């Protein structure tokens, strides 16, 4: 597929949108600055549950988001009505908001930096979705369903496979043009086992996560090969002892590190939260602006980057949705807090450095500060060394539940599977493993970080935030990590 070309067509994104762009330019009002973000998205989903093929779905979305700035005011309008009249109406509605936004502005829009550079980005796809027919994909999902039926106590099982292709074009009144094309693959399977009053679920194959790329990404997720093991673990967990209530060492696998990074590093470092924008809905942050540059967030082993350049990670891109070029930056280096997750607008408001993370979930929402790819950098311990360093502790894998306070500080998280570790060796399964901590101190107990061999790329397609609500995909990559002296508990 050519860079910038739309799925299923030979036309480039710019060619596809040209009639809308031409129409917009005839109706856009005379303002200090305008930008036009044009987004087209197509999502196809296949699912087989309990051996039954669910109706396939194909969701298309297409619309434009208009930003007008004039004399310190800033207003938006988004529309799926892509006729000249529809674009005219959208511009009229945005103009109506310009005056109130100028008179009551939280900050002076004239001070905001504007996009300066044109460019493009396209996801790398080795094996495209079309390389496998619908019949072949459904047969693969059926095969996984059969593998998941590992015993009579499996009461529910399902496998799914989705693709999401997105084209985003950003134009500005200064002549900047940014074309970005994203291809995401969203696989997963899960089995639920039940015996008496005990029910356990295990998931795998990328369940709850996604990647940029094509069908070549499935193998890394263990899709379909890990299905049998997942079902057998669900059954084994039925008879496993409860996770002990104890204070011990904790070994988190990358599939749970994802959630740990997301909730207790990502959200607290969002600069718009720190500036108070989210206090009515998503919450605030225990991090304050004066902490950057000096606050010890974690042990010296903690190195966290904003990294938009990991090819297969979900939120890799060249520019954010306001046109800021994206570059790898350390948010936390050697345990010390360096910079927040703040886009150009938040950086200007807060007087802090930031990253290119102004993102919108679709054409119908304005960009706000979001996580993108937020990664914990690998250390130098092999997985065996991580286990060997633990005298008594619990390994936890695959997130099952999470709870964290408004300021993203006090938390308790649960996992699907636990495994005891004694005297440096992995022992038996434990069910319903949970742990609790406080973000401000939890990361200081980071005692060992896995090397590149345990480094895995995860993420979630459903990070929620913002008013009106925005659900967006974010990437988190991490090795397995050891934390000392953590409050651990089970389900009793």
């Amino acid at each position, binding site marked *: 597929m050519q860079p910038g070309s739309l799925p299923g067509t030979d036309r480039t994104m710019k060619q596809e949108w040209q009639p809308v762009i031409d129409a917009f330019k005839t109706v856009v009002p005379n303002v200090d600055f305008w930008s036009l973000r044009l987004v087209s998205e197509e999502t196809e989903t296949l699912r087989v549950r309990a051996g039954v093929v669910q109706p396939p779905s194909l969701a298309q979305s297409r619309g434009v988001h208009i930003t007008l700035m004039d004399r310190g005011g800033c*207003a938006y309008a988004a529309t799926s009505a892509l006729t000249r009249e529809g674009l005219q109406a959208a511009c009229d509605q945005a103009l109506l*908001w310009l005056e109130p936004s100028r008179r*009551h502005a939280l900050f002076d829009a004239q001070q905001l930096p504007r996009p300066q550079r044109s460019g493009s980005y396209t996801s790398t796809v080795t094996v495209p979705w079309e390389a496998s027919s619908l019949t072949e994909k459904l047969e693969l999902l059926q095969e996984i369903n059969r593998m998941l039926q590992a015993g009579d106590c499996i009461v529910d099982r399902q496998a799914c496979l989705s693709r999401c292709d997105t084209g985003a074009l950003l134009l500005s009144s200064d002549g900047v043009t940014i074309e970005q094309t994203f291809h995401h693959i969203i696989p997963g399977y899960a089995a639920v086992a039940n015996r008496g009053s005990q029910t356990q679920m295990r998931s795998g194959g990328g369940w709850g996560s996604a990647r940029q790329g094509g069908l070549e990404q499935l193998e890394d997720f263990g899709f379909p090969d890990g299905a049998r093991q997942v079902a057998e673990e669900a059954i084994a967990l039925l008879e496993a002892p409860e996770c002990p209530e104890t204070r011990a060492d904790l070994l988190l696998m990358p599939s749970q590190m994802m959630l740990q990074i997301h909730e207790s590093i990502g959200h607290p470092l969002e600069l718009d939260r720190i500036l108070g*924008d989210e206090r009515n809905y998503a919450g605030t942050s225990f991090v304050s602006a004066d902490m950057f540059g000096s606050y010890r967030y974690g042990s010296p082993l903690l190195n966290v980057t904003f990294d938009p350049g990991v090819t297969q990670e979900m939120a890799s891109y060249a520019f954010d949705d306001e046109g800021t070029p994206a570059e790898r930056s350390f948010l936390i280096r050697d345990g010390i807090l360096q910079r927040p997750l703040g886009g150009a607008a938040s950086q200007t408001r807060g007087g802090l450095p930031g990253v290119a993370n102004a993102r919108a979930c679709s054409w119908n929402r304005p960009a706000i500060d979001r996580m993108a790819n937020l990664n914990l950098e690998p250390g130098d311990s092999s997985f065996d060394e991580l286990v060997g360093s633990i005298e008594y502790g619990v390994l936890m894998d695959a997130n099952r539940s999470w709870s964290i306070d408004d300021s993203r500080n006090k938390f308790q998280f649960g996992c699907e599977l636990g495994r005891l570790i004694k005297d440096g060796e992995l022992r038996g399964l434990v069910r319903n493993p949970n742990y609790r901590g406080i973000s401000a101190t939890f990361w200081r107990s980071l005692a060992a970080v896995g090397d590149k061999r345990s480094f895995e790329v995860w993420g979630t397609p459903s990070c929620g935030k913002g008013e009106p609500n925005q659900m967006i995909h974010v990437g988190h990559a991490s090795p397995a990590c050891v934390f000392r002296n953590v409050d651990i508990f089970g389900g009793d």
Partner: protein
Amino acid sequence: MISLSFRGGINTRVLRLTIWNCDQPAGSELAMETYFRELSDTLCAGLADGEVLLLNYQGETSDFARLNHNRIRQAGHVHHQALELDLVRDGRESGASMPLCGSLDADLAQARTLLDRLRTQLPLLPGDPHLNYATEVHDSIHCGEDRLPEPGAALETLMEAARGLDLVGIWAGGEQSRGFANSLGQRNWHAVDSFNFDWSLHGEGGRAVKSGSAGFAWDPAVFPARLEAAAGELALLENGDEKALVLQNLTDALDALETSGSVPASKSAQ
């Protein structure tokens, strides 16, 4: 832009939502319910024998303003219309959804392209043992009355009432519409104008009082009264008098139960 009068079966109103058809002579416009009906009739008329088509329409024309420190953080307008198509044949079902761009010819062409795609897909699917859809025909139409103020005017009154206070939240208001049609002849339409003001008042040390109001008609007197009550609660929190606050909330709730049978939506958080 011209709004067309639409005589509904239940209520009479002027539809604010307007659709433009660039393939028709200038000035020719169709109200959205009529547009959806025409789209549905045309698509259903083109079905092959044995096919059943289910169509769902979703539309939104709304304004929003996000507030922080009683100032506008973001404000704008959203106009979004989309159509879902479910094609059923020989005990098999497949679905798709698409945006409506406002040109009837273009929207019909895109819907037909999707239907062709679903037709190609259906024979490749096994029969769906859970397939279930309504076969009795029940038509309905409801068009609510637009009793909302201009969005900017509503915001002015809110922010004036909260002058000097740390008000955070979102005001959103406008029209939401839903439509359903199927090839068995059923037609449903529902459109209402409503607002939702979800807000909180913030004080020292992370203390806050959460509140909100929503409805179909805007009463400018409601917010100042609620704001005054919230400010009183925030003062109690800031003075560390949580016991008095709990008592006050209990009293308010009991009063509301006695007078209206419902408890007001208000809670305090720290």
